């Protein structure tokens, strides 16, 4: 069974496979060799075989930790970061995670105490799932490993669907599969004598630090931290590349790599043939300025339609946007070019205030303080200049859509209400059975109960940052758009903006440093002034997006969908899967076929339904049998 569990995630580590069976425990590992290519085989044990570890990820400060441990008398057999965790655990026990700067999911088995210790990095960069099975307990980096356990029933959790069709993600420990749990970011799990405990070791906190006196001081400190975060993330025994999207964040990362003295920087990007999404001109500008060796993969809508089933096999959860698909194609290019590590700009929007949702909330709040203002709602037009449809939106409609009720101002989810309310409308497509199983949707009430202490005292900007960083970042950006589609082609992403020192520093900055008036990521733009081209520093932010519904239309003008979509969205298949209402889906599909599904809601509904059908088809109905793995 362990072989089967590892086989199914072979893409995460095609370089070597290892197993360790001892007493009640069986550990498996698929290795992607990046540090200490010769000595880092896993599962790994310490010198007296009193501890065993299986570990996915990187500990970037392993060099410093190793030196400290050697000074304390620890003896090392390898140069790997894996062995550093083991010795640090010997030294500090569960608290070892506090010293780690990195991205990890690991398990340590202590045979003497018969104790299992699992840990996941602070922000949820590396995935970690677990399940209680008939014969005990199992854990894995991907849910498909757990689904390979014959005794685990493969079923969709309707409450997970309710969460996805509200806030785009499942909220850990919930996953889309009943019986499988996700260890939340910043948490550890212990299992001893049949007793399981899940405990947090780190949390996002947004209390402003009065010690940062000025914007100049903040700018210098931010740059120094980012430089060091990048330096640590270049540690590797294999070549390291970078993504260069043409936006601010990835350009800053590539520039920092250059600043650190790397002469040959290999960069990668996605180009779209649809100009609405394409950023090639900015990519070219950044490439020329930084002098990187750049390569792009061209993504056409038909490419997205073609790879989407494979993408969902890797995301393992429904998505309401196709945006993971181009990144899946990008990691393929990276791998084909012989790279298995890339640095990217992920996390900057969350921690330094880049997302439109922050701006939108600021305008709505500003408007709500003077509801009769004729001028204030016009600011809304400045929100989404890249959305043609919204730009043509008449003023009366803008007012109606973004209208703020006074009572909403005190809502803890003020910034996210328009997004969540719009997404919730997609639930009309749920089947009667699923609606009955969900009952009264409690997703938002459950979230409210889990808000951290102190949340109510944070300023509104910090509250909206928290929601993006705690929910969408791990649940979608770092997983469906991050780890899963990169690891699909055995590529590891590294994110300087998500170094916990940068995250903690940014969280303590006042909101005005992050968004000055309506200028997003103000401090980063100041910090990067001499590092990147002016045009990129001053350009209007264009969020990363990809064509949705149109990706699934056949390119032959026949007004029909690609074959698998026609099959999975047929009334028969919809009825059989039982998640959605066949009649409504048929009308939506008709609208898509006719090219009339131009609204955001219809596009999200279509992608959400198709991806859910793919999850049901691939993981429940046709999960690969042992011999095909």
């Amino acid at each position, binding site marked *: 069974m362990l072989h089967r569990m590892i086989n199914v995630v072979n893409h995460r580590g095609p370089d070597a496979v290892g197993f360790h069976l001892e007493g009640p425990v069986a550990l498996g590992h698929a290795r992607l060799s990046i540090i200490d290519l010769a000595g880092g085989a896993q599962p790994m044990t310490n010198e007296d075989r009193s501890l065993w570890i299986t570990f996915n990820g990187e500990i970037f400060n392993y060099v410093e930790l190793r030196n400290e441990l050697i000074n304390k008398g620890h003896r090392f057999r390898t140069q790997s970061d894996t062995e550093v965790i083991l010795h640090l655990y010997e030294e500090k026990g569960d608290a070892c995670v506090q010293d780690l700067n990195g991205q990890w999911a690991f398990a340590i088995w202590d045979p003497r105490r018969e104790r299992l210790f699992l840990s996941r990095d602070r922000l949820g960069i590396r995935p970690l799932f677990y399940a209680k099975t008939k014969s005990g307990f199992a854990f894995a980096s991907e849910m498909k490993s757990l689904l390979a356990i014959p005794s685990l029933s493969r079923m969709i959790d309707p409450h997970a669907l309710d969460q996805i069709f509200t806030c785009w993600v499942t909220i850990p420990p919930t996953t889309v599969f009943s019986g499988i749990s996700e260890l939340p970011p910043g948490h550890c799990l212990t299992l001893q004598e049949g007793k399981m405990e899940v405990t947090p070791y780190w949390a996002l906190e947004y209390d402003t630090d009065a010690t940062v006196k000025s914007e100049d001081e903040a700018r210098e400190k931010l740059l120094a931290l980012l430089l060091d975060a990048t330096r640590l993330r270049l540690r590797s025994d294999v070549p390291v590349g970078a993504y260069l999207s043409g936006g601010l964040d990835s350009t800053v990362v590539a520039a920092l790599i250059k600043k650190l003295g790397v002469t040959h920087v290999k960069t990668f990007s996605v180009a779209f043939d649809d100009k609405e999404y394409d950023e090639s001109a900015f990519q070219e500008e950044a490439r020329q300025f930084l002098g990187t060796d750049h390569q792009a993969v061209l993504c056409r809508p038909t490419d997205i339609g073609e790879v989407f089933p494979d993408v969902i096999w890797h995301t393992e959860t429904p998505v309401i946007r196709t945006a993971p698909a181009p990144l899946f194609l990008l990691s393929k290019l990276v791998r084909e070019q012989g790279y298995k590590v890339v640095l990217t700009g992920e996390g900057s929007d969350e921690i330094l205030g880049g997302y439109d949702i922050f701006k939108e909330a600021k305008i709505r709040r500003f408007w709500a303080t003077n509801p009769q203002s004729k001028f204030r709602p016009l600011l809304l037009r400045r929100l989404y200049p890249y959305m043609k449809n919204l730009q043509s939106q008449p003023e009366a409609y803008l007012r109606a859509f973004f209208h703020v009720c006074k009572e909403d101002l005190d809502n803890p989810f003020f910034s996210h209400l328009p997004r969540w309310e719009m997404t919730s409308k997609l639930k009309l497509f749920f089947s009667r059975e699923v609606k009955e199983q969900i009952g009264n949707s409690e997703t938002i009430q459950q979230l409210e109960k889990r808000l951290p202490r102190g949340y109510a005292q944070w300023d509104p900007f910090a509250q909206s940052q928290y929601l993006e960083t705690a929910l969408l970042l791990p649940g979608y950006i770092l997983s469906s758009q991050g780890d899963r589609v990169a690891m699909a082609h055995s590529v590891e992403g590294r994110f300087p903006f998500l170094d916990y020192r940068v995250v903690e520093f940014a969280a303590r900055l006042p909101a005005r440093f992050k968004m000055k008036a309506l200028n997003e990521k103000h401090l980063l733009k100041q910090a990067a002034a001499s590092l990147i081209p002016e045009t990129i520093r001053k350009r209007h932010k264009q969020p990363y997006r990809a064509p949705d519904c149109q990706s699934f239309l056949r390119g032959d003008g026949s007004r029909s969908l690609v074959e698998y979509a026609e099959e999975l969205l047929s009334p028969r298949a919809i009825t059989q899967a039982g998640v959605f209402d066949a009649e*409504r889906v048929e*009308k939506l599909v008709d*609208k898509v076929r006719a090219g009339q599904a131009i609204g955001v809601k219809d596009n999200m509904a279509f992608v959400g339904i198709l991806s859910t059908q793919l999850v049901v088809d691939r993981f429940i109905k046709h999960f690969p049998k042992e011999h095909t793995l």
Partner: protein
Amino acid sequence: MTSIEAQVRQYVTDRLLFGRSDVVVEGDTSFLESGLIDSTGVLELVAFLEEAFKIKVEDEDLIPANLDSINALTQFILAKSQALANSRA
């Protein structure tokens, strides 16, 4: 029910409600307030009007008073169609 109203109702049922029978859309039910159209949906509505009724919807026509219910739409289409017929006469 006029044929215009029937066409509008069919559009609302198929394209906005997706066949939903649990929501009753009266003639004066507001599309905005009932959440039947999303933030880009009004343009979809305009595309439907221009294609199905061969009328031209001007920017100044884009106000909820013209577009926000079955009754409003029906009246708007009638007025537009008559204006078009008069201009051709």
